[in-house]
C-alpha cells in the first residue's frame, strides 16, 4: 500500500464521526488533566486506560493520543498562568510564559504556545509519515541482541539527561528495573519478591506512576500553592493577540524547536520534557539578547512548545514501529496497545493499517482541533484556574484513589500508591530523580527478556552485543552516553584548575 492511499485511509478513519468525537474527547480531557498541577499525561492515561477497554483499538489509541498532546498543552496553560507546570514538558514553558502573563499578556502567551504546538506537531507528523516506513523496514534487521542494546541505550540516555547527579539517576533506573521484576518470572513461573499474594502479578504501573508523581506532588504543593495570590487578567481581544513583531519572530525558533523535538522523539529513551529543555537552552545560547531570557521572550516560549509537540509525535515512531517506547508515557501507550491485542513492531503497519494510519492522521486532526478549540476557550481557561488549590487537591486525590483501585480491583494498589507517594517525596528531597525509576520499571522486564533470549541463542557469549554491527552501534552509544559527561566534566574541571593555578 503506497503512501498516498495509506494517508487517504488514515484521514478517512480519523475524520469518521465516531473517531472524531473520541479525538475531541481525548484532547479536551487531556487539556483539563494537563492543567491540574501534579496530574499530567501519565496520570490521565493511567486513569483512562480502563475506559479504553470498552472501545476498539483504533478509538482507544486516538483518544489516548489526543489525551497525550492535549495534556501537554494543558500543562502549558497552568505553567503560563500559575507557574505550576502541569506536565514535565511544560516546566520550560513557564520560564518565559509566566513573566509574559505577569506583564498582563497571558492570552498572547497562550496563543503563541498553541500555534507553536501545532507547528511542531505538523513537522513531527511529516517526519513520522516519511520516516515510519523506512524505519520499520530497517527494524526488521533487529534481533534480540539489537533490542537489548537499544533498550539499554535508551534507558541510559533517559537517565543522564535529567538534572542532577548522573550516578543517582542510574541508581534510580536500576531500582526501577528491580521493582519491575517483582512478580512472577515469565520463563520459570517462580515468584520473585512477592511479599503479598496480590503482587504475584507484579506491582501496578498505574499505582507507581500516580504515587511517584501525583501524590508526591500534592505532598509538596499543599500549603505553598494556596499562599499564592490572584493575577490581574484582562480579557479584551486586543490584549489576547501577539504583536506583528512577535509573529515575525515565530518561524526560526519554531523550526529549530521542531527539529530538536523530532530528533529526541525518535530516539527511544528521550522524550518531550528533555526536548523542551534542550530547545530552550539552544534558543538562549544563539539569541542576541540572552540576558532578556526570563522576562517574557517569545523565542523562549515558541521553541520549547514546538519541540515538545514534535517530540510527542515522533515519539510514536519507536513505539509503533519498533515496540520500544520513547518515555514513560509512550510506555503506557505501548501497554494500552498490547492490552488491546496489538503487538507493536515492524509488522504493525501491514497487520493493522487502519489503526496505524488512522492514529497518525488523527494526530493532525487532533492538533488542529486543539488550536481551534482553544481560541475561544482561552478566556475560560483563565477563569477555570482561579479554583483555589484547597478545592483542587481533594478532587485529584479522589480520582487517583479510585483510578488506582479500579484498575485491578485491588486495595494493595492503593497502598502501593501511598508508599510510592512517600517514596517520591523522600527521593526528590535527597535529589534522586524519580523519572528514571519509572522508565526502568517499565522497560526493565523487557531488558531482561531480550538479554535472556540473546544469551540463550548465543550460548552465553556476551561479546555478541559487540560483534553484531547494529547492536555494537547501540552499545557504543550507550557507553558514550554513560561515560562522556563525567569525563568531559572532569576534563573541564582539570582545565579550569590549571588556568586558575597559572593566573
Amino acid at each position: 500500500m503506497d503512501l498516498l492511499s495509506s494517508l487517504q485511509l488514515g484521514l478517512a478513519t480519523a475524520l469518521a464521526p465516531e473517531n472524531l468525537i473520541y479525538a475531541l474527547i481525548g484532547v479536551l480531557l487531556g487539556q483539563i488533566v494537563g492543567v491540574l498541577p501534579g496530574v499530567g499525561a501519565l496520570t490521565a492515561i493511567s486513569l483512562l486506560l480502563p475506559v479504553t477497554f470498552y472501545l476498539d483499538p483504533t478509538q482507544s489509541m486516538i483518544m489516548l493520543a489526543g489525551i497525550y498532546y492535549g495534556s501537554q498543552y494543558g500543562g502549558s496553560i497552568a505553567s503560563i498562568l500559575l507557574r505550576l507546570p502541569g506536565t514535565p514538558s511544560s516546566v520550560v514553558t513557564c520560564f518565559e510564559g509566566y513573566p509574559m502573563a505577569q506583564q498582563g499578556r497571558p492570552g498572547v502567551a497562550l496563543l503563541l504556545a498553541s500555534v507553536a504546538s501545532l507547528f511542531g506537531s505538523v513537522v513531527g507528523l511529516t517526519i513520522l509519515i516519511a520516516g515510519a516506513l523506512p524505519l520499520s523496514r530497517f527494524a526488521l534487521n533487529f534481533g534480540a541482541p539489537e533490542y537489548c542494546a537499544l533498550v539499554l541505550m535508551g534507558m541510559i540516555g533517559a537517565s543522564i539527561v535529567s538534572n542532577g547527579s548522573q550516578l543517582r539517576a542510574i541508581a534510580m533506573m536500576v531500582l526501577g528495573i528491580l521493582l519491575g521484576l517483582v512478580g512472577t518470572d515469565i520463563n520459570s513461573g517462580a515468584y520473585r519478591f512477592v511479599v503479598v499474594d496480590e503482587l504475584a502479578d507484579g506491582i501496578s504501573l498505574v499505582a507507581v506512576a500516580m504515587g511517584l508523581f501525583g501524590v508526591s506532588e500534592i505532598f509538596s504543593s499543599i500549603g505553598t500553592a494556596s499562599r499564592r495570590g490572584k493575577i490581574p487578567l484582562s480579557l479584551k481581544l486586543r490584549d489576547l493577540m501577539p504583536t506583528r513583531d512577535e509573529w515575525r519572530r515565530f518561524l526560526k525558533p519554531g523550526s529549530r524547536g521542531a527539529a530538536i523535538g523530532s530528533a529526541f522523539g525518535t530516539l527511544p529513551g528521550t522524550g518531550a520534557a528533555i526536548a523542551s529543555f534542550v530547545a530552550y537552552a539552544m534558543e538562549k545560547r544563539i539569541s542576541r539578547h540572552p540576558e532578556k531570557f526570563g522576562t517574557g521572550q517569545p523565542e523562549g516560549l515558541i521553541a520549547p512548545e514546538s519541540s515538545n509537540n514534535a517530540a510527542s509525535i515522533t515519539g510514536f515512531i519507536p513505539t509503533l514501529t519498533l515496540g520500544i517506547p520513547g518515555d514513560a508515557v509512550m510506555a503506557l501507550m505501548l501497554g494500552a496497545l498490547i492490552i488491546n491485542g496489538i503487538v507493536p513492531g515492524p509488522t504493525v503497519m501491514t497487520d493493522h493499517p487502519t489503526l496505524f494510519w488512522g492514529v497518525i492522521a488523527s494526530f493532525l486532526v487532533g492538533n488542529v482541533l486543539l488550536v481551534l478549540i482553544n481560541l475561544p476557550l482561552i478566556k475560560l481557561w483563565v477563569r477555570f484556574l482561579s479554583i483555589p488549590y484547597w478545592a483542587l487537591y481533594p478532587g485529584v486525590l479522589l480520582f487517583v484513589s479510585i483510578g488506582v483501585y479500579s484498575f485491578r480491583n485491588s486495595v494493595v494498589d492503593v497502598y502501593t500508591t501511598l508508599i510510592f507517594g512517600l517514596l517520591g517525596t523522600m527521593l526528590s528531597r535527597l535529589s534522586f530523580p524519580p523519572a528514571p525509576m519509572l522508565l526502568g520499571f517499565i522497560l526493565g522486564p523487557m531488558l531482561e527478556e531480550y538479554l535472556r533470549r540473546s544469551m540463550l541463542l548465543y550460548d552465553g557469549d556476551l561479546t555478541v552485543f559487540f560483534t553484531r554491527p547494529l547492536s555494537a552501534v547501540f552499545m557504543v552509544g550507550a557507553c558514550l552516553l554513560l561515560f562522556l559527561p563525567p569525563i568531559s566534566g572532569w576534563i573541564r574541571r582539570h582545565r579550569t584548575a590549571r588556568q586558575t593555578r597559572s593566573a
Partner: protein
Amino acid sequence: MELSLGGRDMAGASGKRSGATGRSWRCRMLGWLPGGVMMLVGGSIAATAWGYDLGSIDNMGPGFFPFVLGLVLVGLGVAELFSASGKAEVSSERPPVNWRAICCISSSLLAFALLINSAGLLPAIFIGVYLAMLSERPVRWISALLYSSALTAFGYVVFILGLGLPVSAVWW
C-alpha cells in the same frame, strides 16, 4: 535558568550548630545516607536473589538478573559514597517538610483503602476526602464536611451511576 516553582519558601530549616568546617554534624551524617541506603538496598536484593535459582549465563534463572542488578546497586552506592556530590550537596536550601500534609494525606489514602471493601465506596470517599482536607491550615471543619459530601455525591454519580464501577456504594 533559575526556577523556583510556585513561591516555595526557599529559606528552609537548617541543622544543628555548624562546626569549624561550616557544615553541621547533621549535614555530615546525612551525606552518607544516599550511598549507604543504596548499598543496603542493593545488598538485600542480591541476598534475596541468591535464594532463587540463579542458573547460568546461557540459561538464566529467575534469580540471575536481580542478583546482578543488586550487585550493580551496591557498586553504585560505593561510588556515591566517594563522589563529590554526595558530600557537598546536603545544604539547607530546602523547603521545610510539610509533615501535616504528609500525615493527613497518608491517612486519607489509608482510610480509603481500608474502607472501600469493608464499608463501600461512599464512606471511603467521604472519610478519605475529609481527612485529606485536614492538611490545610487553618482547618475549616464545616466547609471540609460540605466539600466532602459534595465530592461523595459527585463520586457516586460519576463512578457508580456513570462508569458502573464494580464496587458497592455502601455496606448495607
